[in-house]
């Protein structure tokens, strides 16, 4: 007899495979043609639209929605992709409730924004289902640019540079391109191997070569890249994770949430993934929510997310918090882990209640735990990088670093939120700046 929700300890296959399939299906299934038409009709085509201002990549939202409404979704997709080459992924993963849709005047008016993200997906899906690539390259410039990191920032930068006629080599330490699109985004946001399909589609422009398994600092150095290329862009994300700093946090099954999530994304069969009966996730951001929700979807009986401050301070949006609650995740706030208990492997974890200034109140409690996932923030990893500021590569303007000829963008660089769409914007803008700099040099 296979495992079920009550099976103690850590076990794979707690749920039947069709339940798993249903659990990990598209969170927001794509709109049908008519649904899209109706949704598009709700857009007021605002003047100097606030939704555009709220989109980090400044997609001309009223224009693309009008193009959908008039039956030309491929033109709509081009409007989207010309600003945001990963518009397909962004349509799936953007926290629209805090971006474009929050700014939508119909949110102001009725609390029901135009469904911008879903419409964006509708248009980009239609275009990307067709063969070919909508953008073409300018005449070759003879310049070569190295991009480190094949995440959203690096890919957006590489695409824009290729469009300008430059040749680009992208180096990435991981076996697959896509960065957190491939290894981080929750499974139910990017289904059907969309991340790889999108990377392949993006590379369709030509002029970009991706070298996987090449880590900066291990296989290549920044000095080498500077010597061999006309410019370097760093989009290496945040490779390190913060330590828990609680007694016993080195016990078995105290794990990094990002690794758990990466395993989920790489699994070909969810039924093979082991999950605890009692799971505790520590953190208050998107990573914590994604780990907790997916633990629950895998069949964990009790999943508790514990955050050290109050709800209002959680980085995860109210939408994400509600999603977690709706899947049965229990959220405890104002509690900090003090010790991990267990004989070799974790059995229990003890928390101290804390007030909003993180001062312990003196009360403690314990939670049973077969697994503890830490999601308390990622950090910049690597040495020999340009100057940093508050743990990120310091940039001025469009991603210029302290080293001439080296640009940076995305999670690894200062400025903006740690979001896919922000990474795309920064990669794109750095590419424009690299292009301007190289062409000005003559």
């Amino acid at each position: 007899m296979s495992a079920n929700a009550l099976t103690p300890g850590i076990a794979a296959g707690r749920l039947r495979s069709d339940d798993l399939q249903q659990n990990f299906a598209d969170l927001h299934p794509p709109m049908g043609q008519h649904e899209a038409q109706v949704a598009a009709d709700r857009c007021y085509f605002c003047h100097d639209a606030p939704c555009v201002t709220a989109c980090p990549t400044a997609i001309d939202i009223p224009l693309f929605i009008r193009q959908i409404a008039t039956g030309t979704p491929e033109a709509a997709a081009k409007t989207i992709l010309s600003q945001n080459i990963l518009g397909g992924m962004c349509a799936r993963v953007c926290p629209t409730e805090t971006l474009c849709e929050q700014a939508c005047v119909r949110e102001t008016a009725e609390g029901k924004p135009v469904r911008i993200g879903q419409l964006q997906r509708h248009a980009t899906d239609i275009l990307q289902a067709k063969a070919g690539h909508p953008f073409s390259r300018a005449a070759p410039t003879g310049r070569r640019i190295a991009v480190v990191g094949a995440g959203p920032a690096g890919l957006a930068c590489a695409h824009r540079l290729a469009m300008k006629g430059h040749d680009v080599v992208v180096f990435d330490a991981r076996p697959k391109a896509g960065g957190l699109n491939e290894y981080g985004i929750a499974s139910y946001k990017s289904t059907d191997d969309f991340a790889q399909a999108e990377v392949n589609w993006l590379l369709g422009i030509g002029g970009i070569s991706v070298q996987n398994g090449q880590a900066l600092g291990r296989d290549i150095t920044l000095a080498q890249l500077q010597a061999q290329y006309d410019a370097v862009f760093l989009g290496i994300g945040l490779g390190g994770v913060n330590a828990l700093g609680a007694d016993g946090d080195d016990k078995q099954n105290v794990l990094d949430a990002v690794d758990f999530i990466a395993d989920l994304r790489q699994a070909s069969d969810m039924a093979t993934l082991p999950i605890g009966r009692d799971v505790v996730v520590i953190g208050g951001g998107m990573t914590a929510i994604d780990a907790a929700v997916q633990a629950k979807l895998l069949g964990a009986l009790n999943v508790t997310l514990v955050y050290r401050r109050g709800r209002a301070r959680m980085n995860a949006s109210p939408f994400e918090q509600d999603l977690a609650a709706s899947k049965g995740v229990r959220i405890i706030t104002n509690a900090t882990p003090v010790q991990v208990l267990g004989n070799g492997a974790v059995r229990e974890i003890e928390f101290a209640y804390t007030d909003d200034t993180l001062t312990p109140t003196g009360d403690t409690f314990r939670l049973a735990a077969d697994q503890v996932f830490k999601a308390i923030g990622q950090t910049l990893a690597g040495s020999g990088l340009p100057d940093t500021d508050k743990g990120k590569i310091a940039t001025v303007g469009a991603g210029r670093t302290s080293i001439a000829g080296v640009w940076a963008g995305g999670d690894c660089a200062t400025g903006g939120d740690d979001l896919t769409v922000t990474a795309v914007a920064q990669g794109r803008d750095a590419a424009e700046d690299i292009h301007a700099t190289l062409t000005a040099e003559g």
Partner: protein
Amino acid sequence: MADLTSNFVGIKSPNPFWLASAPPTDKEYNVRRAFEAGWGGVVWKTLGEDGPPVVNVNGPRYGAIWGADRRLLGLNNIELITDRPLHVNLQEIKSVKRDYPDRAMIVSLMVPCVEEAWKAILPLVEETGADGVELNFGCPHGMSERGMGSAVGQVPEYIEMVTRWVKQNTRMPCIVKLTPNITDIRKPAAAAKAGGADAVSLINTINSITSVNLDLFAPEPTIDGKGAHGGYCGPAVKPIALNMVAEIARSADLRGLPISGIGGVTTWRDAAEYLAMGAGNVQVCTAAMTYGFKIVQEMISGLSDYLDSKDMHSPAELIGRAVPNTSDWQHLNLNYISKAKINQDLCISCGRCYAACEDTSHQAIAMSDDRVFTVKDDECVACNLCVNVCPVENCITMEQMAPGTTDPRTGKLVEADYGNWTTHPNNPNRVAAE
């Protein structure tokens, strides 16, 4: 509660909502169900002369215009008059009228333009017990190519002649249905009146091509690669029909000629507007074809509630109420000055008023960096465009300026007295104001 009973040229019906002559009234099955649903009367689908009936196309006969969420706004058709044998229609009319004596049963007719043809059909209709006839001088496609329908309706002399034949050959009330495909609706209405018509009904459908198929390069609906113009009806035609009703209602020569209002009536409100504009009752086709017979229930409750709210006891008290206020441009008060005003509590900062006014009107709306929109009174000409494009109802209103205040746009005092173009100093043909 208001009493909706209607008496139109002596024809009584429990309410003023009739189904217009069209597919909804094409046969006994439909009409019985319409009466069960509550319709006050029907104008039976147009009958032609005895003999082999006309044939319809066997491809699509409708085209359409849609609004948001595929709401049907305009319908175009190339259907002809009834394609069922005359005697079958007559039998059915008789049987329905017998079972629903309180409902209005009007029979629409279209036969060739010779007196014999009318003499032949009228006694047959009388024999059914029908309450009246409607002369279809409006059908703008197919039948008009054969010298009937709008081919007659476009020549006032023919209208008068045929109407006279009908009045001479039957005791039944005669309603003449007018085509809108003319330049001045008063001419055919006057001809009908001169011929002795008891009433006019309008409008029939408007010549139209709703769309062109961009793959076939042919008008839609397309039949084997070709299309023909059709007749347009539905909500989109209401403003045109309402104006034509007003033209007749306020014409000195035609005053008192009963009107059955037709064209885009979809809700009780449309019907009430027709009544206020001088129609004695209304006829409905497209709305029933879109939503089914049940809509009449909303029309009945809506009109009844409205009349109650206005302390009116019957539709008769509403009929014609807007006619005296329907004027000509030259008589509008040029001393009435208003300004647009934006209610900041309601405004959602979409900027549509700004785009409209800035790009296409009078540059009279200001936009601040934080998206606050305000009207510049010194530029606003009160054109109302912002009101019409604003997505929030009542967010922008037109506020009248009090007499004695100064209009910041012109620097002139707002006058208390009425003054129109006929006496305006800029009018080269002005008449001296008394």
